[in-house]
């Protein structure tokens, strides 16, 4: 046994390595926003936010925020040269119309058929969905970044989701704290694994069968 695992920053770094030069990318609110910090040197990603900006940049210096220039998480952002504004229907037309290359989201659970649950745990409290149910449809690749297990140690990669669904059959790749897993033909297919952990241990922490299809690469991420 080992408790080796990637930090959130390292998971975000790994996900960033797969973003191609020139890609149009939507990052979900919260943890996925970290991916923007690790854009690969020499590549340019153009970030989309649901409230109507393409090509926004990092947060401004504190005290210089302009509250008409925010992202979908209502945080202040900046503009890069070549940015564009548009209204909400155009913004979600870009999403559903398949014009984004990549969407990266967080997850409560991902099922082996690509179902995603990430908006609600149960029926208590105030439900709030935002743009999650739209973002899972339309981007050419819908990837998830997440811890491999919950804080209680339960698997987040499961046979079928028990939490309310965000979308059906929508996720194509999952970057976890232990592995990189593709979803193909209704199966989890292991692509990369932390070298410090055994296959048996990884399987024990995964709630559905992990298929092997060809080489499993080492998941090597720098200290961040």
């Amino acid at each position, binding site marked *: 046994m080992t408790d080796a695992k990637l930090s959130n920053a390292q998971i975000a770094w790994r996900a960033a390595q797969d973003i191609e030069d020139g890609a149009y990318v939507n990052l979900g609110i919260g943890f996925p926003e970290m991916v923007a910090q690790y854009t690969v040197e020499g590549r340019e990603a153009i970030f989309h936010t649901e409230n109507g900006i393409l090509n926004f940049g990092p947060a401004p210096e504190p005290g210089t925020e302009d*509250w008409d220039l925010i992202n979908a998480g209502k945080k202040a952002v900046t503009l890069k040269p070549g940015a564009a504004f548009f209204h909400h229907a155009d913004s979600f037309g870009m999403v559903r119309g398949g014009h984004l290359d990549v969407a990266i989201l967080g997850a409560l659970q991902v099922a082996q058929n690509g179902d995603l649950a990430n908006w609600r745990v149960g029926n208590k409290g105030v439900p709030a969905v935002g743009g999650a149910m739209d973002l899972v449809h339309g981007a050419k690749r819908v990837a998830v970044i997440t811890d491999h297990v919950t804080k209680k140690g339960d698997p987040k990669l499961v046979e079928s989701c028990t939490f309310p669904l965000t979308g059906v059959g929508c996720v194509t790749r999952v970057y976890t704290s232990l592995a990189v897993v593709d979803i193909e033909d209704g199966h989890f297919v292991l692509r990369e694994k932390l070298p410090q952990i055994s296959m048996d241990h990884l399987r024990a922490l995964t709630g559905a069968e992990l298929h092997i299809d060809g080489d499993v690469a080492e998941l090597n991420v720098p200290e961040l």
Partner: protein
Amino acid sequence: MDKICPSLAEAVAGIPDGAVVMIGGFGGSGAPIELIHALIDAGPKDLTVINNNAGNGRIGIAAMIDAGMVAKMICSFPKSSDPRAFTDRYLAGEIALELVPQGTLAERIRAAGAGIPAFYTPSSYGTELAEGKPVGEFDGRSYVQERWLKADFALLKADTADTYGNLTYRMAARNFNPLMAAAATTTIVQARQILAPGGIEPENVITPGLYVDTLVEVTDPQQEETLIRAGATYEGAKA
């Protein structure tokens, strides 16, 4: 043609009890705070309010909820940095909620303005938010049928208007405002400045004036986020 109204109070005076009211903005950006606060002063009850969110702090839509004016919210994300106004009433069963995925909300409003009574979208297919809605299969994929979303009134925030009601917006404050302008029977706009015809280059018009009924000039509009950070209340913000 004169769409200019001399006061906020007059602009919202015709909004009756039970009206369906769209309010522009995404969080604080593009939120017509002055028009909302004038509506609170007017005090119609049993309103259905359509906005992306459900208010923040003790100002704007949250203050409408605090004042007991809102019977139902139609929104995608009824949470905020200080969501007490909506949360307390919702958990007490005192306010109804129709939760709509954000892109579906935008498209339902757009469809209403464009005269499209229903459309199909992949969003929410297979989820609890699609329960009871017709499903159609197109080219091997399943889609949920959604209906247009209209309103009696829209309260919007623009940057620059001309007297015909042609509008521009400031940065990401555009968001839902142009969609709502077309989807409401009566569209009421607060603008930072109202110029003579020709004051806006035709190339730069975002919302053409035919959608706009009433204009009020609010030269130094308050920003919801700034008020929130100052801990402002509706009464304080008006002072």
